[in-house]
């Protein structure tokens, strides 16, 4: 088999993305065991996907951490206490009763002892230095990746800084209008030439069949500035609005059925100019 040609076919990409059928996947895995080049290619692609996931990372709510830890303690507890449904201690029975459970216990103990002895060997045979070196290498790789990502983000934002630096531009933060749902969006408005830009910093993805619509309040009446394109929510990406707006008291975003409405239905965020 010409291994370069095989890699060129995109099979490794399809494999790491999980886009192969089960049969194709099994075939590829057995090929990978034979050709180290394939395995190397797969590791590199997996690292790329990890970086892609890191770039898409979302910090979970802070309130989640402790309940997760409690659940881990319970999960570990239930493994050790032999799935006792009532939670009380079960006395150890002779081996002929509940033999499967005792077998499991024995296996668990063997794994724990195995793991402990592996730890012991690792920590006591001078492997620590090696581990530290690997840690440093990983740190360096991570820093390089971070730097690359920052550089690309910088070039993205550089184009918008010129606009931001313009003192004629007013920044209007639109705050949530729905109690208990912290949402926000930002509008940049150059009143002199009527230019506006919107960034949907903290708005959820709209439900299926719905879209966000931008409004300007003129003389107390909402005037539509158009539908906001999909996929902008929860990003600091700015979108220029084509409508020229030279007067207005406030700006708002509402949730509407796909295609929009003549008047706002549910206001999500609003900010005074």
């Amino acid at each position: 088999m010409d291994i370069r040609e095989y890699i060129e076919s995109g099979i490794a990409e399809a494999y790491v993305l999980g886009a192969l059928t089960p049969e194709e996947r099994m075939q590829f895995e057995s090929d990978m065991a034979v050709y180290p080049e394939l395995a190397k290619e797969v590791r590199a692609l997996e690292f790329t996907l990890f970086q892609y996931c890191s770039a898409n990372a979302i910090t979970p709510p802070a309130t989640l951490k402790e309940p997760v830890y409690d659940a881990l303690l319970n999960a570990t507890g239930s493994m050790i206490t032999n799935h006792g449904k009532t939670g009380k201690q079960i006395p150890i029975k002779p081996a002929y009763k509940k033999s499967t459970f005792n077998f499991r216990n024995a296996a668990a103990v063997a794994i724990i002892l195995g793991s402990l002895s592996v730890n012991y060997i690792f920590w006591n045979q001078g492997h620590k230095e090696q581990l530290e070196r690997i840690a440093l290498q990983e740190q360096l790789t991570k820093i390089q990746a971070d730097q690359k990502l920052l550089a690309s983000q910088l070039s993205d934002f550089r184009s918008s800084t010129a606009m931001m630096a313009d003192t004629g531009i007013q920044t209007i933060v639109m705050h949530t209008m729905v109690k208990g749902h912290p949402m926000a969006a930002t509008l940049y408005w150059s009143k002199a030439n009527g230019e506006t830009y919107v960034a949907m910093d903290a708005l959820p993805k709209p439900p299926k069949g719905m879209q966000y619509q931008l409004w300007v309040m003129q003389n107390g009446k909402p005037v539509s500035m158009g539908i906001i394109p999909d996929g902008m929510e929860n990003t600091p990406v700015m979108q220029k609005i084509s409508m020229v707006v030279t007067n207005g008291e406030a700006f708002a975003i509402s949730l509407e059925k796909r295609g929009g409405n003549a008047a706002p239905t549910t206001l999500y965020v609003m900010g005074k100019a």
Partner: protein
Amino acid sequence: MNPEKIYSEEELILLLRQQSREAFNYLYSQYSAVLYGVIRKMIYDDDIARDVLHDVFVKIWISINQYDAGKGRLYTWMINIARNASIDKLRSRGEIMKAKIQTTEDAVNKLEQGMKTELYTDSIGLRKIVANLKPEYEAIIDLAYFKGFTLDEISKSLGIPLGTIKTRMRSGMKQLREAFNN
């Protein structure tokens, strides 16, 4: 916990197998945002996504002994747990088909957006910040990686020939790889 401390994967695996609080703190601080990002790519509902993240940590914690470093890196293993848990959750709620239909719509929107970006050259933004990945590449990568579509399913649902899907998938991965200098 000392926030400056950085463990290698090998050290983290050892710590996790000891099931210490420090191991959990480190695991959570280093990986919860990546894993939550993966889950949220797959599940739109915040509450369900949080439940899945919870389950993913439990799964990582109790199956760390089954992790085999010979088969791939720890982050790949953890991300795959998150992907599988999300797909299982969608499937259990009978939403997997719905999700497939919805993502096809999203993908089509992305394709349209890609064309729009080229038309409205004066507008700032619209481009995804992530590695400036072309929308038509991103759609295919996301359908496969985050929605569990096979190449054939992607081809059928987007109405684009299989050969084109393969080429775009490869180009997309190449673009990501170059962007991350990998």
